[in-house]
Structures are given as C-alpha cells and as structure tokens.
C-alpha cells in the first residue's frame, strides 16, 4: 500500500499543475499545492480507500453495496455528497459532514459504522485537509450513474399532478342518450374507446340504499324502500343532503384524514378532553356545506382569521385543533427531538392529507422520488416551528418531560373573562402535582434502602450492629418526614382541585409563537446535526400559487393556508375531488388517494379528474354540489353486475363500466343494527364521553383504564360519536377496520376476518339488538301480510330490499318450525326447544351478519 502510494503521489504531482482542483487550490502557490497534494495522498487517500470505499465507491455500486448514495472515491463525490447532502465543504471542517460523521457526532451517522472512532491523528488530518481547501485530484469514474435522486424542480413541475388543472372539453360520445351529465360523458367516452358497454341500471331499491348510505351513512327505512321510484331520486338526494346526518357522514370521512382522536395513544395515553369540539366543528362544517377551501384555511390558520362575532371566533380557534391532534411521544426527554417529531407529524398530515404528497420523506434526505429537497421540508417546518401548538397537559408529575405541557384556547361565552385565571389555575395545579409526584419518588428512593439496612442489621454484630441500628432508625425517621411532606402536598393538590375557579371552555389548537424563526436543516433528521437555515416557505415544486413568503414577525401559517387553497395550487382540489369520488365509486380515479406524486398511480381518467377539480372550484368548493352531481349521474346508478364484455376485458373495473360493490364500514354496520332495533339516537351526545372523567384530574387513560370497559364503550348514538381512544377503540370499530387514528388514512382497509363473523354471530350486544329488532318487527309493517309481511319488513329494514317469494318461504320455514315450513331448515332438531320469537331473533341476527348487509352493492 505504502509503496503504491509513492507512485500515485508522483503521478498526481505531475498532473497537479494541469488540473483545476477548486478555487482554494488555484489561489495557492504551486509549492503549497504540491504540499497539499502530498498531504492528501499520504494521509487522506489511504484512509478513504481502506475505510470508506468499501461502501462508498463506484466499485461498491457495481457490487450493489453502495450505501447512502455517497461516493468517497472522487472529488465530485465528496463535494456533492450522498443522501444526506454534501460531505465536504472545502475550507470548512465544521460544516463538513464527512468529518462530523468520522467524529461520531451522532450515533446515526457515525462512520465507519459499528466501530470505534478512527484515531484522533486521522481526524486531525482530515480537519486540516478540509481547512486547507480539501485538495483532491481524483476524478469520478466515467460512466457510473449518478446517485439516486428525486426529480429536479423543473422535472417535478412538469409532472402531471403539479400542473394546474385546466378545464378539458367534454367529449362527444356515441350513445348520447345514456349520459345524464358531463361526468357520464367522460366515463362513456373512455368506455367506448376501450370497447366496453356500461352496465344496466341497478334495481331502484339498490340505488336507494346506495344513496342513503353514501350521503348520510344511514339505511333507508322499510317504508322508504317500499315507496321509492327512480324518478324520485333527485328529490330524495336533495332531502338527504339537507340532513345533519350528511355532516356526520362526510365529516367523518375528513376525520379519517385528520387522524382525529380523543387520546394521545403511544407511550402515554393522555386524554384529549377537548378534542370533541373539533369533531363537532367538522360535522357542522360539512352539514352547512362550508366551502372546502375555507374549511382548510380555518383548520390551518383559523386563529389568524379575524371575526368580531364571538361564536365564529370560537369556531375558528377550534378549527386549528386539526394541527394539534397528533399522537405525541410524551416520554421523550429531549425537547428538540419532541418538537421536531411533532412538526413532522403535522407535515405528514398536511402533505398526505391535503396535497397527496409524502413530504415527510424529505425530513432526513432529499426526497428519493419527488422534487422535494430537504430544504423545502425545513421551510415548512419553520412555519410550524413558529407556531405554538395548544394541546394542554401531558402526563403530570414528570420533571424531565414537563416541557411539553401547553396552554389551550379558551372558548365559550366566558372565554375572555375566565381565560387568565383558568390558565393560571392549570399552571398552579401542574406545579403542585409535580411537587407531589417528585416527593413521592424521593420518598420511594429512601424506602428502597430499607431492605439493605435490615439485612445489614441481621448480619452485623457488636459495634457494627449498633451502627446498623442507628442507620435503620435514621432511615425510618427520614421516611416519616417524607410521609408528612407527601401527605401535605397531596392535601394541597386535593384542596386546589376542590377550589378550581370557574373555567372557560377549552379547545385544542394553534397560535403564533412570539418569536417566529426559520428552521435549520437537520442533517439526516438529527436534532444534533444542524445545517443551513432555510427561510420559511412552501414546496418550491408547487410554485404556481403566487403567495408571498412569510414576512418577519409572523409564522407564515396564514400564507401556508393561502398557498394550500390557492386556485393555482394544482393538488388540493384534485386530491379532494378524488377522495369524494372514491367514497362514492369505491376507488379513486387516482387509486392512491394520498399519493399524487411520481410513486403514486396515474389517473385512469385524467380529463374527468381535472373537469371535477375545476368545476368544484367554480362551484365554490362545495362538497354538497360535488356529491350531488356525482350521485345523480347515470354512472352512479349502474348495476354492480356488468356486461359480460366489461367483466372479461376489464376485470379490475378500471373503466367504471359497472358499479363497484363496497364493504359497509364499521359505522354503517353499527348504526344500521341500532336503527333496525329502533334504538338509534340521532342526536349529538350532550356531553363528551370523557366528561365522566374529571378534566383536571384524570389526564391519563393509564390510571383508569379498567373503567374503559366494553360496556362503557357502548352507546345508542351514531358510531361517529363513539370515543376514539387511540389503542383502545370500541370493539365494533376495531373489528370492522375503522380508520386508525394514528395517521392520516386515505382508504380504510376492508379485510374479511373470521373475528368479524364471530362478533356478528355471538356478541351479546349484537344478539340484544337482534332481539330488539325482532320484537319491533312483530308490530311493524303491513299487518295484513302476517308473518310474510314481517319477513318483508325485516328485509327492507336491514337489507334495503324486498325479499323474493322463495326467500320468504325459507325464512318462514325457519322461524315457524312447528308448522313445518317447506324450507329444509324447518322443524329440524336444531331448533326444537327454541321459542318462535327466539327464532325470529336468530333470523334478524343472521340478516345483520349476511353478506348483503355487509356490502353496499
């Protein structure tokens, strides 16, 4: 090695005068150059070859061993760096990632990996070499592909989803009579192009159930099923759009994206006592058809939008709860790590939820696929870092993590009058609880020493024994003192709790920090490895919305809200109309609803998507307009059984030549059973689930988890009002794959699980509702129909359709075993000993469990 080096050295010196090595080098005298080159060859190159190039070289790349996209085998490679950015900044050792990695500044970038640091002399050599201009004669090996990078900004801006949607011409179609709307013409044109024919119209009853469940989440009553005619559809839709149930159904779709929850989950499942206000705000927003752009602006920057009217002001504050609802690692003891993790969670929700982009990938390195440099991530992070989140108190009594406690927004009629004293009270309570918990721990530390002292006493003799006795006595005295102190503090906390001042309403949310600040790039996402400061701003790949950068003295959240909802933002409207489409047609035109980037799917009907996006914005971002126009299309009425040709040529139904049957979600199943039983309470619960737990005492679910029993989690209100406790979802929600509140959910899973079957077959609550439904059916429906009428009423109530004659007969055979119906099940041994009403209840339960109840066809 050494011998070879000498050769290399001579070779390099000969070339030195002919090669430009960088400005620092050019300025240096030739003698200096030779000296620096010699230094590189003797001290630097051997280390690079032996310790770095195994994983960071063209050779490593050929062997598939290249790590981090980083090449240490050329000057270019060092200067450009890999996934984590430039490795060497000539003249600046402190800013050179290479050196920082070699110094093991952080565990994650420590190089060489899994080894001790290289000797200090080597580190000193590298520091000196970089300070002297990082002279390096090595050229990159020709023909080796550059490291993997996302798109450049120019390439990114040219990608289909980054170009603003333009209104496309509505296409001409062969079968013009089929199309009821422009939507139909876009779909039909694609079908005709693909040689497909649309499916016929679904039975009126099926369309009615579809429209009820899609618009309101509630099934039609038996009477509505009986009297419905297709020509009534428009009037029926308009009626449904006006109901509060629309707000609950479509608000809940948004809550999936907003990862809404009423507790923190994670390591400390702290209750979010006030989260429900945000939930209700969302339901109200959809029920009143708040324009979606306004809705987004309020959630991102509501506190900055002025309103003189107190109720509006409250709603605007509550809206910002959107930013604060994320799950936080309360046990994290490093404030900076905690803070950046919280920001990351917000960027994830804004990125995937609003823009359909996985922006959060750029936290540690430039995005591998999208045109999102790390700098853009930290531009956004700066905005959120300049925003104070208000989520209240985390777990109490832990000194090391007390930094994450925050205030809350005061709302309600008494907000202004009571805010200051309320906050002061909460602060004081927290201080006293901290003191109480701390002295409990201190007492425990003393108590722990007792067994040792006792053992010593047992084994000691003579003087030692006397000493041991004294020690134990002293210990006991000390413990008594602690008992007194802890007792006093406990009493003081109780007194404080009993004398709480009148409180305003509280809400989670966000407000400006006093000192907005730009954020530094965190190399590899490490809080300990800071790079350049990035001015607050947005994603540069989306440059069409001309929104000015945030000025000094403000976080930039208002500008962020404007940028997100700007008409020229190409993503927001597209992503949203695609979500709505997917809720109604079972799958998005873009099948990756939260990924509109290069890794996402291309739209099946790009013109239709753009048509919808443009029309949606033209119609004032109205969700009701959009839902209405889609459910009144011809396409929405199609049968789910397509033509033979469409099934064979388009098995995946990409071209929407038939309706896609969908799984009924957890809420639909829950509400439908309650409604059939006549027990569904359509009102909004008067108080939040957690009202039973003292908002200023029981902050953590941990301490009263035994109270969260299955029985406690049952309610006759709609499922959307069931408590969303992270990690402890009510059974029916958990089993039927409710959206996980841990992250923004674009599409729920719909697995078919035997545990779901077991639930519907055996769960006592389901049985109870089946019994209630059977009882109700005895007096319902057309009395003249007798038992057959009862069967018909039940089919219509639970499945939304009229039974066929053979079905009625089969059911009657089952329930009326004594009279020996003609069905095979009738009169079998299995049902002997069961009363007739029990068998009616069995039939009801089987309707709940049946395939048709669990699907929307």
């Amino acid at each position, binding site marked *: 090695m050494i011998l070879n080096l000498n050769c290399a050295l001579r070779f390099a010196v000969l070339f030195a005068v002919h090669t430009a090595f960088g400005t620092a080098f050019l300025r240096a005298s030739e003698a200096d150059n030779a000296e620096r080159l010699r230094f590189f060859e003797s001290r630097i190159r051997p280390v690079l070859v032996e310790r770095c190039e195994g994983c960071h070289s063209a050779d490593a790349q050929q062997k598939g061993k290249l790590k981090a996209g980083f090449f240490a085998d050329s000057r270019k490679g060092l200067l450009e760096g890999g996934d984590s950015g430039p490795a060497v900044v000539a003249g600046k050792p402190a800013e050179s990632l290479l050196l920082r990695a070699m110094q093991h500044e952080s565990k994650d970038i420590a190089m060489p990996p899994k080894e001790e640091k290289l000797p200090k002399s080597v580190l000193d050599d590298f520091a000196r070499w970089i300070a002297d201009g990082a002279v390096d004669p090595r050229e990159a090996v020709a023909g080796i592909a550059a490291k993997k990078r996302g798109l450049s900004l120019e390439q990114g801006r040219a990608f289909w989803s980054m170009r603003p949607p333009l209104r496309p011409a509505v296409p001409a179609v062969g079968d013009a009579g089929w199309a009821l709307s422009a939507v139909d013409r876009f779909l039909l044109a694609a079908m005709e192009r693909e040689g497909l024919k649309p499916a016929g119209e679904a039975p009126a009853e099926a369309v009615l159930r579809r429209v009820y469940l899609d618009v309101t989440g509630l099934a039609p009553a038996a009477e509505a099923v009986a009297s419905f005619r297709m020509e009534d559809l428009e009037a029926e839709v308009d009626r449904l759009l006006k109901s509060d149930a629309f707000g609950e159904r479509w608000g809940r779709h948004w809550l999936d994206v907003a990862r809404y929850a009423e507790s923190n989950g994670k390591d400390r499942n702290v209750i979010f006592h006030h989260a429900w206000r945000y939930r209700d705000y969302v339901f109200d927003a959809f029920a009143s058809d708040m324009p979606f752009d306004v809705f987004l602006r309020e959630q991102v920057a509501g506190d900055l939008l002025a309103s003189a009217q107190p109720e509006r002001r409250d709603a605007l504050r509550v809206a910002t709860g959107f930013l604060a609802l994320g799950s936080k690692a309360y046990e994290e003891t490093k404030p900076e790590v905690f803070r950046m993790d919280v920001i990351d969670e917000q960027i994830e929700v804004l990125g995937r939820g609003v823009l359909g982009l996985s922006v959060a990938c750029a936290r540690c390195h430039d995005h591998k696929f999208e045109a999102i440099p790390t700098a853009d991530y930290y531009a956004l992070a700066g905005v959120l870092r300049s925003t104070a989140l208000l989520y209240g108190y985390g777990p109490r009594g832990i000194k090391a993590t007390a930094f994450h406690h925050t205030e809350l927004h005061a709302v309600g009629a008494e907000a202004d009058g009571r805010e200051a004293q309320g906050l002061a009270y909460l602060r004081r309570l927290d201080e006293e609880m901290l003191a109480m918990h701390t002295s409990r721990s201190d007492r425990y530390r003393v108590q722990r020493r007792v067994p040792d002292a006792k053992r010593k006493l047992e084994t000691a003799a003579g003087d030692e024994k006397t000493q041991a006795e004294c020690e134990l006595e002293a210990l006991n005295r000390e413990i008594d003192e602690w008992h007194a102190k802890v007792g006093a503090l406990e009493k003081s906390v109780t007194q404080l709790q009993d004398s709480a001042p009148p409180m305003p309403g509280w809400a989670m949310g966000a407000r400006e920090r006093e000192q907005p600040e730009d954020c530094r790039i965190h190399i590899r996402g490490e809080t300990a490895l800071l790079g350049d400061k990035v001015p607050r701003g947005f994603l540069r790949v989306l440059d069409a919305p001309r929104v000015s950068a945030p000025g000094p003295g403000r976080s930039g959240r208002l500008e962020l809200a404007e940028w997100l909802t700007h008409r020229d933002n190409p993503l927001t409207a597209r992503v949203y109309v695609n979500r709505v489409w997917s809720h109604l047609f079972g799958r998005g035109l873009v099948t990756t609803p939260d990924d509109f980037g290069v890794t996402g799917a291309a739209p099946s009907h790009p013109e239709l998507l753009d048509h919808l996006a443009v029309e949606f914005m033209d119609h004032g971002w109205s969700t009701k307009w959009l839902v209405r126009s889609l459910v009144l299309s011809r396409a929405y009425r199609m049968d789910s059984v397509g033509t033979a040709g469409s099934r064979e040529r388009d098995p995946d139904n990409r071209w929407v030549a038939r309706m896609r049957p969908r799984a009924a979600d957890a809420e639909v199943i829950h509400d439908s059973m309650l409604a059939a039983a006549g027990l569904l309470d359509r009102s909004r619960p008067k108080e939040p689930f957690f009202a039973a737990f003292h908002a200023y005492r029981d902050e953590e679910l941990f301490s009263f988890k035994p109270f969260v029993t299955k029985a406690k989690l049952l309610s006759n209100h709609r499922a959307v009002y069931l408590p969303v406790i992270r990690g402890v979802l009510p059974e029916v929600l958990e089993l039927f794959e409710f959206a996980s509140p841990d992250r923004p959910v674009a599409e729920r899973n719909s697995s078919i699980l035997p*545990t779901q079957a077991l639930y519907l077959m055996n769960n006592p609550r389901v049985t109870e509702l089946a019994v209630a439904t059977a009882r109700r059916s005895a007096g319902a429906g057309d009395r003249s129909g007798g038992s057959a009428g009862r069967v018909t009423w039940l089919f219509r109530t639970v499945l939304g359709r009229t039974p066929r004659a053979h079905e009625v007969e089969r059911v009657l055979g089952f329930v009326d075993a004594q009279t020996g119906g003609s069905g095979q099940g009738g009169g079998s041994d299995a049902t002997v000993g069961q009363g007739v009403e029990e068998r009616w209840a069995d039939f009801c339960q089987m309707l709940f469990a049946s395939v048709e109840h669990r699907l929307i066809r």
Partner: protein
Amino acid sequence: MDTSQPLNFSRRQWLRTAPAGFGYLAWAGLASREGALAATVPVPQPLPHFAPRAKRVIFLCMRGGPSQMETFDPKPELIKRQGQTGKRGHLKLFGSRWGFRKCGNSGLDVVELLPEIGKQADKLCVLRGMHTDNENHAQALEQMHTGSFQFVRPSFGAWTVYGLGTENGNLPGFISINPLTALGGSRYYSSAFLPASCSAVTLGNANQPGAPLVVGDLSNANRSRAAQRARIDLMQELNRGAADSLEDARVDGLIESYELAFRMQDQVPEVMDLTRESKATLALYGADRSPTESFGKQCLMARRFAEAGVRFIEITHVEWDLHGGLAGGMARNCAQIDRPVAGLLQDLEQRGMLEETLVVWGGEFGRTPDDPTTDGRGHNNLGYSMWLAGGGVRGGFVHGATDNLGYEAVEGKVHIHDLHATLLHLLGLDHERLTYRYGGRDYRLTDVKGNVVREVLA
C-alpha cells in the same frame, strides 16, 4: 376460461383450486383490499426468499427488562468491585447475589435461579451484546416489537404472517397470549398498515391479572352448536342468492369467513384445551402446580398453537422491572418461568418440532450494574442479554459481550434491528426485501437498518 393459465384465473376460480384454499386466504391477509382482489392473485412476493430454517416463532416476552447480570451474563468483576463507585459517579456497584453454573456440554453460564433452563443450555444461543435505542419501557417495548418507537409500525409477528401466511386455515396466523394492553400495548401486536388479518388474535390481558385466556365472542351461550349451524345454514342460503346476483369476490370471502368462524368455534377451544394433555406433560411444564402454573399453561398453549400451525405465538411475563425488591423479585420470577420454559424446549425437542420452531426469550432492555441500593437496578438499553433456541440457531453458544461491569455491549453488538433481520433470515425472509408499500413508500421491519448476525446461524 382456460384454467391452465394461472394468470388469467378469476379470483373465484383460484379460490376454488388453490391448494391452500379459502382458509389460507382469509387469514393470510390476502382478502383485504378489493383493488388487489379483483384481477390478480395478490400473493405479496415469491416468499419465502430462500430456504427457511424455522417455520414459526414462539416469543417469550419478559416485560420490564430482566437483569442480564443475574441471568445469562455473569460479571465476576462486578462482584469484586462490590460497593465501589461505578461509572455514573454517585451510584454503587453491586454484583449478583446468585452464583452461575457452567451448564450442558457447552458449559454455558446460567444463573443458579434457573436450574431447569440450565439443563437445556446446549439448546440456547445467548446474545450478550444486545442494545436498543430507548430506555423507557413503552418505547423500548414498541421498538422490540415493531422496530420503531416513534411511529406506529407493524409488529414483528404481523410481518411474519404477512411474509409467510399461516399453516392452518382454521386458526389465526399470529396469537398473543396474555398480551400487554396498557401504555400502547396494542401496538405490540397490531398490523398497523399491513392487512388486519396479519394482526394478532389475543387471549387474556397481562394488565388485568386473572382475565380469562379466551378469544372474544368465540362461543354463544344461548345457542347450541346445532342451533348455531341451523341459523348459519339459513344465512348462507340467502348469501348464495346474493352471490349469484352480485358478482364480487368479496361475497365468496364473506361466505367462507362464516364457515371458518364456525370451525374456529370448535377448533380453537380444542387447541386451547389443556386437559387433553397427559399428566406427565402438564408436569413437564409445571402447569399442574404453583408457582409455575400460570406461565406453564401459557407455554403449553404456545406449543399447542405451534403444533396446530400458528405462525407466530407470543406469551408475556410481566414482572421484571425490579427497581426495588430485586432479591425477592428475581427469585420469584425465575421460579415462575424456569420449569415452563425448560419444559417447552424439551417438549418441542421430543416432538421433533424444535428444529423448525424458533424460540426467543428476552425483555425490552436489561439492567444497570449500579444503583443507590443493592436491591434494585435501573434500566439499561446499552447492553443486555436475550437468547434464541431451535430453528436454525447455534445451540450452547454465546455471542457478544458487555464490558466487564455490564454497562454496555462492547463485542458482538446486536441492535434490535439486527435481531429482527436475523429472525426474519431464519424464517427464510430477506429483511431488505420483505417490504410493504404504504403511502408512497416501501416499509420494512428494519427500516433502513439491520444486519443478519451470521455468527448465530447453525
């Protein structure tokens, strides 16, 4: 349609002809997204990636962090320096009050509190250089189970089922007996973004001692088996009518899920019925007597599930967080697990199952060598011990070491990511290729880290 061309199979045809049949699909997470259902058979990847050494995992989770210097990592130097100040200034060093024995032909060191496990020493592969990123229980447990303590990620068990499916269509692929439920416990066995069928079915609750070990809604107190069958027959007849008018793969899946549930009603209690075991077997696990009864039953049930084809079985012992009461606590815990764990290893061996069953023992971290008292130890995530046995690992073998006092791993360091990579490797899965695309990104159990610890492979 020509059935000799598998790529053109409709899902329904495939379901009817596939060797694994309906049950496999229902459990193996393949019946999830409708988009994936329609056109192709959604087997995630050609799996396993290479010949597996183990077919299944039994994970003995020791919640709280067992002390390494009082189990599998003797520290004579620590005993010598008893009472001296350690590395952390004010705290005093103290050694194990229990001796170690050289066990088996391999002479593996096992604490005298675990004499029965000691007799199985030649089966154990002790990893003394374990380390992990976090010293809080909740986060370390989460990382041990999912690789991440910052984000919600699928559990190791869920990844295993995702990768390999299940061997028995009548049973879940992942079962967690006596799981932790407090402090984010459900995340330890959840499938996160993987299909829900990859998540664990749970029995009992470690945070509610005495909670019965049962599968929810498995039986119906008010309906005989025959009555249950009669009403299911009624429903299935209606369902089949729907199947004809509603051409959707989901209909078949739903119809079959009720048959599977019905079979589970019989089979799960059968597998869980320990009265079917001989007296000798119950005694082997200590399932017939105190203080081993509770954990012994869990171990025995784990073997029964393993035998029945469950892919991943986790059982939990919760009492290892001994800041105080170390002397009594270690003696109690060891007495509770010693016979059951040894019985499990012996039983697996005599049934010829040990070779293909990977047994993993350990907690979320270890303990510190120093403390203000001599009767408790603090959390130590920088160095601790776990052990593996069976399925393709070197028995009677020690890999790695902590420093001579036990503060941190210094040799043969195995990060929890490395352990995951190694366990997947033993199951025939390449941790870098076992990926799941979610939200625009391919996720792995080991994130972007992890190295297979080749030294431990038999």
